[in-house]
């Protein structure tokens, strides 16, 4: 299989306190085309930081980053910002945990969904852009997409907003979609729908997905491969089913034990 993203020895350190604080240490990830990889770990395990680094969204102040994030022959950690920006939203997209605040409150949904096309594909005219946006909104399961197109974020529920976020992230048909705890803020039935949607998009568009969660059972539903992280380090990595069957590390066993069981 073709490797599209190769992260090696990623190291992120914060400097906003007296002592430097390592938040990610020796993180490695090889992502193949069309694959879904899960990253699991508790809060503060460094999973979101790794994701933000791949998406090129680490703030520039008060941190050092080392290692390499190779994509398309460029190291995203050190390359020109112009090159990084040309991938952001076009080849690498991200959706976040908080659908309530991740959309701009004063801009129409359609405008936000189309944004990546407007930035990266100037050759597409306005009418086609709108048509594509409505098709994408329909594909992510937003009912009456023509109407939603002219609505504002506050008029939608949390689940609908996350669908909007996914539509906006997918509109330029990126090669990689990073989903940073996309279901954590949503209730359980909506969670399942979003997971189904990601699986469908992965199958239909061939988009590789990095799915980040603290919930191993969600990862098991969606991913083939999983990376288990604890306090900035990768503690275990491998096939999801194998890890479920025979977890090597005690931390992984704890995460598995934390999944609520339904007694019949």
């Amino acid at each position: 299989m073709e490797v599209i993203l190769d992260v090696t020895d990623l190291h992120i350190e914060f400097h906003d306190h007296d002592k430097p604080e390592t938040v990610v240490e020796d993180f490695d990830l090889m992502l193949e085309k069309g694959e879904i990889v899960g990253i699991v770990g508790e809060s503060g395990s460094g999973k979101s930081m790794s994701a933000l680094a791949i998406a090129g969204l680490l703030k520039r102040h008060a941190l050092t980053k080392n290692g390499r994030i190779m994509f398309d022959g460029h190291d995203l950690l050190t390359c020109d910002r112009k090159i990084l920006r040309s991938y952001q939203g076009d080849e690498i997209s991200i959706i976040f945990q908080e659908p309530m605040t991740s959309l701009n409150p004063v801009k129409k949904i359609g405008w936000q969904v189309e944004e990546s096309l407007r930035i990266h594909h100037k050759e597409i005219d306005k009418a086609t852009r709108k048509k594509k946006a409505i098709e994408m909104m329909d594909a992510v399961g937003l009912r009456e997409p023509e109407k939603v197109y002219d609505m504002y974020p506050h008029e939608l529920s949390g689940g609908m907003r996350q669908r909007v976020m996914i539509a906006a992230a997918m509109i330029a048909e990126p090669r990689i979609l990073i989903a940073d705890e996309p279901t954590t803020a949503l209730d359980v039935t909506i969670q399942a729908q979003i997971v189904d949607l990601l699986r469908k998009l992965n199958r239909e568009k061939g988009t590789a997905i990095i799915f980040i969660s603290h919930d191993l059972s969600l990862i098991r539903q969606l991913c083939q491969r999983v990376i288990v992280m604890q306090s900035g380090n990768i503690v275990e990595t491998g096939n999801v089913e194998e890890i479920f069957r025979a977890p090597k590390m005690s931390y992984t066993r704890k995460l598995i034990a934390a999944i609520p069981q339904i007694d019949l």
Partner: protein
Amino acid sequence: MRYILKKVLSMVLTLFVVSLCVFLAFSLIPGDPVTRMFGTEATPELIAQYREKMGLNDPLLVRYFRWFTSFIQGDMGTSYDYKIPVAGMIAEKIPITLTLAIMSFVIMVLISIPLGIYIAKHENGIMDHIISILNQIIMSIPPFFSGILITFFFGVILRVFKPGGFVSYTKDFGAFIKYLILPAVAIALPKAAMATKLLRGSVIEEAGKDYTRTAYSRGNTTNAVLYLHVLKNAMIPVVTFMGMALADMVAGSIVIEQVFGIPGISRILLTSINNRDYPVVEAIIMGIAIMVLVINLLVDIIYRIIDPRIEVEE
């Protein structure tokens, strides 16, 4: 549309209450207008005759409605002192005061918006620190004092304008506007300092929100994030402030008109307060109230355009 209708309705209601307060206040102040008109020449017969003629013997509410209905028809009564219609007296002065207030507003906007954006963008840079200190100083100088400084510096030392050399807009509009620039600056400066500070804080706060991270994730440049995403959100509190500032400028221009010798509303207002020429005072207060209410209405409409959430929150 319903939103605007509601705002207009509440504006009319407010105006009604204001007019009632103004009328009652001047009716309850001790001192009889007829006695005041004739001074020492007043005889009881003359007073009784004029009280009847002016309708002062009618009940308060009847007098109020008579005054209010004629006021909205444009008849604001007759000045006790000058014996001419108040409406005519203030009609020629209002354009002066209004022009001054609008010019102050424009100057405030022209200074504060670019400056606020600039220092927010270069947060903690040298310019940010310098401007923040300057802001603090300018904010604490009242317009009448900066007006005096400006008169002294530009009028006496640099001689770029002639203090007291006001030209009426009917004579030479260009010279009229030119004379008003420095007074307008005096009024605008402290407000511009406040608006700059507010906008800076607002831009920085909005720039830290989740949706800007989303905007960056789609490949926006820093400038695109600032102008396409952050600015509209950041302007919401600034618009409120600027609306209040404009209302304040209408009132604030009264003091500045005195400092710069501008024959606007302030001169008539002050003389008529001194002379207890109540119809004139009432009319001016009502005029200022109407201006403030209209400005508030405009702010509400602009607000509605910027922030789509407003209609739903009602």
